């Protein structure tokens, strides 16, 4: 897994080579496209080349489906092609992500009623990033069906799915965001280096200095054995995980967007200071934004959205969030995570309708929102339901709290509080950075890499949380 992770020696070497060749070939799209596609496949196939075959098959099937949809005069056959593509895409996801869980549960149920064990347990390796490239494929064929984007060539669809900065853990890019950029050569004199380098540096710090430190020193020990820890430690682990998952996932996304920017491409924003949210609806406009807009556009709205009355709206919200939970994996903990968000969104909506014009004080709204999100994170992080309930029960436990140290509390608070720093301040810092001499920028970035490596120490960078999805 380490080879496809950004903060590794292998990736640094890979990126320098790709960067040079990519800009050299940029004026020649016929050469650039195959190059970037092969580079992306090398990046993806580093661990297991069979995954590349899967990706290629997915691109071929979705390209053919989109062609049929765009060229067929009959609505019937357009619909059939769309259905076939979606069934194929979801089928891939089901086989690789849910079949093992399903077989194991069915086998357990048969066994429990004395019918023996009729099913072979399956050893299925989950191809990294499959949830991301599958959702991207679905959005592409649906957009073609809706007429929001034109059917593209196989090469373009393959790049759309495989472009290495976003392949493994997003952002989930829509066709009309990336395809137009592929069709116009980027200008090598106008690389957005300031934001690109700044995002890479920031992502590196978020991951190594905050996420991995919190995981190692507080979150993992407490979630591994909640009963052995005091209430204070349990609370710090819960808040710490909120900070860890934000820094881990947004750190990866920052690096992905930064790497893409250095290659001349803009990917959509995925996080917008989510822990400043004053409602759950607000939270989902700021957290994993490309997934939440996917769920909204391809699930919630097709289900009826808020068009068919209150009850249907609540049902649709609940269904959308439950399926959003299941997208992360086949486990009841993810279903409950989605359920908490679905229920909270529904309650929020009901309360808004019931008490129109009434607004909670901002700090109360923030406090409630943040703690509902943290409650849901307990289920998301726990390996099973028993651990999640032990964590919640452990909040009131007494005892000494050696894990509650100033550095860990400071990291947790800083990760959340730094989101309140206005965007303009970061932009000014970017502008300042980009106007320094090249050598100064390079030395600063180099020292930052040394510091990041020292922060993770001998343990090395832990795998990104979202790699497992």
């Amino acid at each position, binding site marked *: 897994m380490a080879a496809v992770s950004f903060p590794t020696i292998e990736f640094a070497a890979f990126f320098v080579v790709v960067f040079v060749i990519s*800009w050299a070939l940029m004026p020649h799209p016929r050469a650039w496209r195959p190059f970037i596609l092969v580079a992306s496949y090398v990046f993806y196939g580093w661990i297991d080349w069979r995954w590349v075959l899967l990706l290629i098959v997915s691109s071929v099937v979705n390209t053919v489906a989109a062609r049929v949809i765009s060229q067929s005069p009959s609505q019937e056959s357009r619909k059939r092609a769309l259905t076939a593509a979606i069934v194929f895409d979801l089928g891939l996801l089901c086989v690789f992500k849910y079949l093992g869980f399903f077989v194991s549960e069915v086998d357990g149920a048969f066994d429990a009623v004395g019918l023996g064990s009729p099913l072979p347990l399956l050893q299925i390796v989950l191809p990294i990033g499959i949830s991301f490239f599958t959702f991207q494929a679905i959005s592409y064929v649906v957009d073609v069906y809706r007429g929001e984007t034109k059917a593209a060539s196989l090469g373009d669809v393959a790049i759309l799915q495989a472009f290495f900065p976003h392949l493994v853990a997003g952002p989930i890019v829509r066709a009309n965001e990336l395809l137009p950029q592929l069709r116009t050569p980027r200008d090598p004199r106008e690389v957005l280096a300031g934001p690109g380098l700044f995002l890479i540096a920031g992502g590196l710090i978020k991951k190594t200095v905050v996420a991995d430190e919190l995981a190692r020193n507080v979150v993992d020990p407490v979630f591994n054995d909640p009963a052995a820890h005091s209430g204070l430690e349990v609370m710090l682990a819960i808040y710490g995980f909120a900070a860890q998952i934000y820094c881990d996932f947004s750190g990866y996304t920052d690096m992905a967007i930064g790497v893409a920017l250095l290659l001349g491409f803009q990917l959509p924003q995925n996080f917008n200071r989510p822990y400043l949210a004053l409602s759950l609806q607000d939270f989902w406009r700021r957290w994993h934004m490309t997934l939440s807009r996917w769920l909204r556009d391809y699930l919630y709205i097709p289900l009826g959205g808020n068009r068919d009355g209150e009850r249907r709206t609540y049902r649709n919200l609940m269904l959308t969030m439950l399926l959003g939970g299941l997208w992360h994996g086949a486990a009841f903990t993810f279903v409950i995570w989605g359920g908490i968000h679905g229920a909270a969104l529904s309650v929020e909506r009901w309360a808004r309708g019931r008490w129109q014009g009434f607004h909670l004080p901002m700090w109360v709204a923030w406090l409630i929102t943040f703690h509902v999100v943290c409650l849901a994170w307990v289920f998301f992080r726990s390996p099973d339901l028993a651990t999640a309930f032990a964590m919640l029960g452990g909040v009131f436990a007494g005892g000494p709290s050696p894990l509650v140290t100033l550095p860990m509390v400071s990291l947790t608070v800083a990760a959340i509080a730094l989101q309140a720093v206005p965007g303009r301040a970061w932009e000014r810092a970017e502008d300042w950075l980009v106007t320094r001499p090249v050598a100064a920028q390079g030395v600063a970035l180099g020292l930052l890499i040394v510091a990041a490596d020292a922060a993770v120490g001998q343990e090395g960078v832990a795998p990104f949380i979202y790699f497992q999805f």
Partner: protein
Amino acid sequence: MPAGQVLGVVVIALLVAAVFNSEAIVRAGESMQGGTTRDVVLSVARPLDDVAGTVGLHLPREGFDMAFGQEPKTAEGTELESGSTAILRPATKRKRDNKAFPQPTPTSPIEVFVTGDSQALFIGELLTDELPDDLFNVEVSPRNSTGLTNPEFFNWEINAQQEVAARGPGAVVMVMGGNDGFNVLGEDGELYGPQDPEWQTEYARRAAVVMRELGSNGKRPVYWLPPPTARDGAFNLIYQTQNRAIEQAAAAVPGVRYVDIYSTINNGRYSDELKIDGRRVLARQSDGVHFSREGAIVPTRLVVDAMAKDYRALRADGDAAP
């Protein structure tokens, strides 16, 4: 900014990182699987590290290490790297078996430290569930990708000293061996591979050094789990040798218990599935080496069985005298 300047920034950054971080790059290279990437990384990083060390360019990294509280995990001239096989002389039976370790009570529970390579994680986590909460506190600290045959990357002798000093555990569980296939220098200065009998002796010697540190020479029990069977036959040959080596080392160091998860689980035959508590579960991960979380309960229970020989509270007859 023009692409050329961006390239300049990136290349300078990587050069600065490589020069100031050369020790870490050597270690990263040493932790890689054998192959071209490892060879390339090490062939560049080792000379660079020699030069950087000579002119004092390690200092900034050492400063960052200090700031982040990182302790060095490698050193030269340790007993783990080279020492006498005299350490493998079997301990007397009295020293080996009859040591009575302090028994846990609710007011004085035993701190159990679970460490080793990546296989230690699930076993440690499940041990927290299997042991009585009021009598045992379990701490888990896996060190992924480490082993005894690559002390340049991670020196378990030094780490054992640091961990024991910092945690003062009452008992230690060591799960180790999945990454050990490297050639080793024997006592005679010759290089031996896992197929050589001398490799087993050297592996046992290294294990004994670490066992002695973890157990403070018999002060606390050490439960050592070498690898289980693997799907790959070539791995099994190495794992078999490691099991024999650990058995040999455990016989030489007081307080060390060899926990055999190789020949006891499924009678020494590899299987993805195991029947656990009457239910079939997928017990191994797709690599054919690691246990799945559900499957790790089997070696965990073997650890508990081994601990029950030292701790009366874990025996079926509870507090009965030994």
